[in-house]
């Protein structure tokens, strides 16, 4: 468990923030008082649950709280991962600029793995259709003056799995029960 999860004031015995996180990764129960329902499942009061969620939001562990949409189900099926090979001294600056482009939904710097993989900046562009995504990319290249930057566009062909990340050990054992190795 990392330091972010450590409480500043200890909750009562048996209360488990780790359990709360595992439950939250699966989503809120869709009932009138979802926080209370979660509280009962992890030995906390409703106020304690709300306190943890507020704290995790403040610390950045929770990036956003709301409806998590499956874009594919809505018809947003063109999903391009665009990878760029940028000089190390400007990659962060370009990353910050690309992240501000409205078509870019995610933007990360990652290591090169030479000789197989020379690209060090990744961004995602989602859209309803391939040609619209490519048109957005052409606009971005123009605006950001990236004509000289080697890049590749990796459209997705098929989604084999799409769900939220699950990190807690507790959840883990659950998963092994659900999906035994063949």
């Amino acid at each position, binding site marked *: 468990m990392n330091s972010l999860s450590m409480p500043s004031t200890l909750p009562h015995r048996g209360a488990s923030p780790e359990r709360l996180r595992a439950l939250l*990764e699966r989503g809120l129960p869709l009932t009138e008082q979802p926080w209370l329902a979660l509280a009962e499942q992890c030995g906390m009061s409703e106020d304690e649950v709300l306190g943890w969620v507020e704290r995790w939001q403040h610390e950045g562990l929770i990036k956003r709280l709301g409806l998590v949409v499956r874009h594919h189900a809505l018809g947003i099926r063109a999903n391009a991962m665009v990878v760029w090979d940028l000089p190390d001294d400007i990659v962060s600056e370009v990353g910050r600029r690309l992240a501000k482009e409205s078509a870019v939904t995610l933007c990360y710097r990652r290591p090169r*793995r030479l000789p197989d993989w020379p690209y060090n900046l990744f961004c995602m562009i989602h859209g309803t259709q391939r040609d619209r995504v490519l048109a957005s990319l052409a606009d971005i290249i123009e605006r950001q003056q990236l004509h000289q930057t080697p890049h590749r566009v990796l459209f997705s062909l098929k989604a084999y*799995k799409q769900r939220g990340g699950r990190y807690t050990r507790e959840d883990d054992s659950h998963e092994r029960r659900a999906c035994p190795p063949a």
Partner: protein
Amino acid sequence: MAALDELDRRLIDAFQRGLPLDSRPFAAMAERLGVSEAAVIERLRELQQSQVLSRVGPVFDHALAGASLLAAVAVPEAERDAAAAVINRSPGVNHNYAREHDFNLWFVMTAADEVQLESRLEALEEELGVPVLRLPMLEGFHIDLGFPIPWAELETP
């Protein structure tokens, strides 16, 4: 695609972030949209049922929530589905996509910590018989605000 009406769209547009931290969050949302709490709960259940919503809840920061990385493997196209099934069964895998590249399977592997992450990757490499390209995030530039849905484009494909 699932047929979504105006209320569905307003819910999605307004609440991809900022779910009220209220004892009755769906009542607070309902009030803002001018509908009943029961209507909001029913819609969310339907949207979840029809797979439009994966869930209502938090999106955790990968880097802070535990260990995770983007990984890729290059497998023969004919073996892609079989390899994807092996990857999907592997503990800690969430997203897993086929993409247009020699590295044709891309997935996110998560674990409680780096040691567990590496042991999962090694076990998977052994099972697949190919090396896994490991691409941890070094720097994130984007704040996840949810994605504005282009409703008009969806109607005129």
